[in-house]
């Protein structure tokens, strides 16, 4: 029993690892390739199916099957796009969250830098007071002066860092905005696939309906089908 549980747990770990792999950007690329491959396959079928139908008699059983095959291929590629878009959506949401966190961290760092600067300024004032209390010949004056100088250098460096932070903030704000817009647009893209799938199905259903009507009005006759102009 224990061995079975362990086996199941190891399988679940394996699935988790596979899932983690597909969630990487490389996984997104593979999903995209798969969707494009299926789209090409479907488009090839779709581009030729009217021509193929025009060669069949109206009541030829292959007519409806031909349309159903194209419909199935269309469903398969839309399913692939839905999988791909779901993954993309997850990544876009992650990107948006990361950008917002980066922005928040930048704001926190600005506050920290200002606090550091104030601390160093206070310490310089304090060290100067302490310096004044020491004998003029004290060996301690030299390291004390160097400490004051070092703090001054750090204050100057903080000013430079603050300027770099402010510039980074502007760029990151644009990134946050872009990431939010992208996440919203990907949501929209994800939502449209269901609608698009329904519309394609409706189209192929209409095409099957026409084929059946053509059969019904012609019976088993060899009446000519609607003309199909060679593309």
């Amino acid at each position, binding site marked *: 029993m224990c061995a079975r549980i362990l086996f199941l747990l190891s399988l679940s770990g394996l699935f988790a690892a596979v899932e983690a792999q597909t969630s990487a*950007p490389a996984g997104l*690329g593979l999903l*995209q390739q798969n969707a*494009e491959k299926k*789209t*090409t396959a479907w*488009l090839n079928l779709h581009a030729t199916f*009217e021509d193929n139908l025009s060669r069949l008699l109206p009541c030829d059983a292959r007519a409806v099957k031909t349309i159903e095959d194209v419909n199935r291929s269309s469903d398969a590629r839309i399913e692939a796009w839905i999988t791909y878009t779901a993954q*993309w959506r997850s*990544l876009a949401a*992650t990107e948006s969250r*990361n950008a917002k*966190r*980066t922005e928040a*961290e930048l704001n*926190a*760092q600005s506050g*920290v830098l200002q*606090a*550091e600067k104030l*601390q160093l300024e*206070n310490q310089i004032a304090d060290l100067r007071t*302490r310096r004044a*209390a*020491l004998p003029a010949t*004290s060996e*301690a004056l*030299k*390291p*004390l002066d*160097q*400490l004051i100088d070092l703090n001054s250098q750090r204050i100057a*460096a903080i000013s430079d*860092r603050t300027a*770099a*932070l402010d510039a*980074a903030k502007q*760029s990151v704000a*644009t*990134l946050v905005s*872009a990431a939010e*817009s*992208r996440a919203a*647009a*990907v949501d929209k*893209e994800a939502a*449209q696939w269901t609608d*698009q799938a329904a*519309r*394609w199905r*409706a*189209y192929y*259903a*209409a095409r099957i*309906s*026409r084929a059946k009507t053509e059969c019904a*009005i012609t019976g088993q006759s060899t009446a000519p089908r*609607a*003309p199909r102009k060679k*593309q």
Partner: protein
Amino acid sequence: MTRRLVLAASAAFCALTPAQQTPDITKLSADSAAAYKTWRERDPKLESEVRTAAKATLDARILRSADDAQKMTIARHELADAAFQAAKNALDALDKDLGTPVLDLQLAALQRQQKQLEQDASLLDRNIKVFAADKDPGIQKVKTEMEKERTAMNAVRDALAGEEKTLTALKLIGDRGEAARTPAVGRYGELMSAARQDRDRIENESALWQAYYQALGKVAPAEVSKTTIAPGNPREETTRVPVLRPGRESTVPPKSGVPPIVADASRWTGAWTYPPTNGLFSGEEPESAEIIVREQDGQLVGTLNARFRLQKGVLRDPVLRIDFNGPLTATRTLKMTAVTADRVTGTLELLPGSAGNLIEVSWQLGASQPSKALPKVRQGGMVLWKK
């Protein structure tokens, strides 16, 4: 002190690196502010009283302030490390394309579909037109079906047009994001570099504080250092005895009140222990320590066994054993050759304490360490009393 700072900071830095976790910079800033406040408030009159305070008291005060300065510098170093790590993490995140898809390909596929549908629609329109001219009821039924098909086709074309709009918008958004990403990456590079430089400055700061407090100890006038621990009963300590800091060599004439230079082996030999409470130390705080010293052919031979209370995040071996030996000389400081159980070599100094039952010990070990062992507490000092 510098080494301690670097090791502590490096340990903190390494702890951050594997998980790439972003440090809590606000908390570290608060820690730094608290450490600064402690230093500032510890002894604001130290410098003004450096010439008037009693030597023994003064040394203890200097030691405390030096320790506070060290802690303050460590906190600053950790904050600078955190700023570096935060910039690095942000740069890594920004520099990583989370999978922006190749929209051009998707758009191209979409346009192929649209073109195909245009052809389909064109054919259908032509057929509808042809069938419209024929009033045969059967033909009219087919024409009606064609019109339904045409409606369905238009619905698909509308959906494709909507998708094209969304994909084009996504492409523009992506371009806008990329345009902002490049300068942001550059800025984060600057921030990383600045944080690195700040860390270097803080390492210098540590050394300067050390030099400052050492020099401050020399400002004190030659004043009597009163014996503060009753011989034979060190726990009744009323004023802390300073640890003699490195650099005070025996060549310096002893100040009045400082115990005289002794060449008597009995001053050093025996078993010495670190007091369980109110002990004096520099560097890492001992939890317990013992030294056993004996004389052998004009040499002093001994062993120091110590266990330290290491600060959180300090990756060092809390246990230290040093075997030492050196000549018994009529100098204030006895300089010994030291070697740890792991064969790390260095020096150990023995100094007389302010009372006959006290000795001071300080040691410094070399950098070489066994490959798989934690680094030893390489530097430190403490006052021990005779068992």
